[in-house]
């Protein structure tokens, strides 16, 4: 997560953002959690970096209560 050279460019990130939204919509409310869980497992395996994945899990856990923002 700290290696800036491996991060997506803004344009690439924007494209993935859209694909994720489409994927969640295509899965539907009943299956979106399963879809995202599968995706997380696939990506985690590809990073080859368990610490980075653990840090990402921790990062994603922050600020989940959007109503309080």
């Amino acid at each position, binding site marked *: 997560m700290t290696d800036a050279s491996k991060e997506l460019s803004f344009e690439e990130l924007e494209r993935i953002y859209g694909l994720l939204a489409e994927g969640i919509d295509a899965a539907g409310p009943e299956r979106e*959690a*399963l879809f995202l*869980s*599968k995706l*997380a*497992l*696939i990506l985690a*395996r590809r990073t080859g970096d368990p610490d980075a994945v653990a840090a990402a899990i921790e990062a994603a856990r922050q600020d989940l209560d959007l109503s309080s923002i």
Partner: protein
Amino acid sequence: MHQPAPPRSDSLYFTYEDFPFVWPPELDGAQPVHDVAIVGGGPVGLVTALELARHGIRAVVLEPKRSVSEGSRALAFSRRSQEILHGLGVSGPITGKALAWTHGRSFYRDTVIFRLEMPRSEEERFGPMINLQQCYLEQFLVDRVRADGLAEIRWRSKVTGAVQDAEKVTLTVDTPEGAYTLAARTVVAADGARSVMRSAFGLRMNGESHEGTYLIADIKIDSALPTERHAWFDPPSNPGATMLMHKQPDGLWRVDYQLREDQDPEVELREERVRDRVQSHLDWIGEPAPWELEMSSLYKAHCICLDDYRHGRVLFAGDAAHLVPIFGVRGLNSGIADANNLGWKLAAYLKGEAGEALLDSYSAERRPATLEIFRQASKSTAFMTPPSRGHGLMRDAALSLALRYAWAGHLANPRQSQPYDYANSPLNAEADDDAAFTTGPRAGAPLLDARLADGGHLIDHIAAGPTLLCFEVSEGGAPPGCVRIDLRRAADPDGRLFRHYGAEPGCCYLLRPDGHVAGRWRVYDPGAIKAALDRLFARGEAGTEA
């Protein structure tokens, strides 16, 4: 008066022998102090009795029933268990009756998502896993005990209470002819999950019990399915839950399925209900053969154990000491390992050859082995019975991915039991060259079997006492009480044995009486080996005490 029921006579495959009650001297008022009383004549108690006999101690075994165990109990035995039973002289009938297996398949609905492969090595006398009904194992153990009078088994004898003082344990024993007290210097409590000995001393097992109830049914069916472990996740025959099938000798099959939370275990255990559910699974897998029901029972996955397996002069073993989930072949295999660990230590203590600290090492070695089983089994259990929505979601994600990717199928690995290395044992040699070896069994690990040039196996040559494996050691002799086995390069032409042990000429391994490595050296050093033996038998500053 304890009046046990006669054994069942309607088994589809096993003829239960009805063991008689034999009048003991205690009922005539005699009060001899026995060396060891073993409470419980199940497999753990009987293996302990044979281990003690191997080391020169004749135990009295107290068993409430009048036959070997009935019902759907232990089934699969690991290589290590087979090796231990081999050392006790019972591998012949076991190997003759059991079914060997090396493969397993896990399915998500009807798609194979994981193949378990445990290749059989030519180096090893025994294969990785066999299936044998527990009643056969117990019968073979009883036969062995009786053939040479290795122990005194008192059938129909139920221990109802126990007290101990500084010299002995006094048991209250109820029998068909009345009650008596029995005195013994030491007691092995192998009286199972509902241990009376545990209650007698107010001891509790701690840990956690997992969600989920499972039903086991043994059925007799002439099926063409191979001798493999079959596991189904979410099959149409048990939606949202798991189903297992495993072949046993005599055309028996173990069917093991998970009950969902909305299913009442008592209703599910009704015979017609079991028949319906087994039939629906057989229909789904396309198994047309007719079948009969032998037995059905329920179980839950527990991960609980005593804080200390030693309580004064009482040593707890098997289910009396710990309840472990049976997934991955762990229950009785861990009890057999307990008996293997305890037998020689208790014998050495009783013969005055070892300090009392050796008895503490039993708990110091076996309790961490139990905790390791808990760690492994908890992962399997969390996959079989997800304890939360998060676990359920990740399990479903893994199963879904496993339909296309083998790496995800590995998350469904049943994690078969592995022998435990006593790597941090207080008995391991202090001054050895363990770190200088790049391969071979480390200190605390069980020996590795190996095929010898004459076609035999190393394991056949291991003595009851400590054994010194000498790899082309030119100096002669062995420390007192230690059997020396010389392994020569000339008898190992392709160098397999030496490679197996990471040995160069001059190396030696000291094996404990239970076949675990006590220490290993690059160069034969009688002084270091003598020190390791003293440490092994807890002969230290405190001196020996009997």
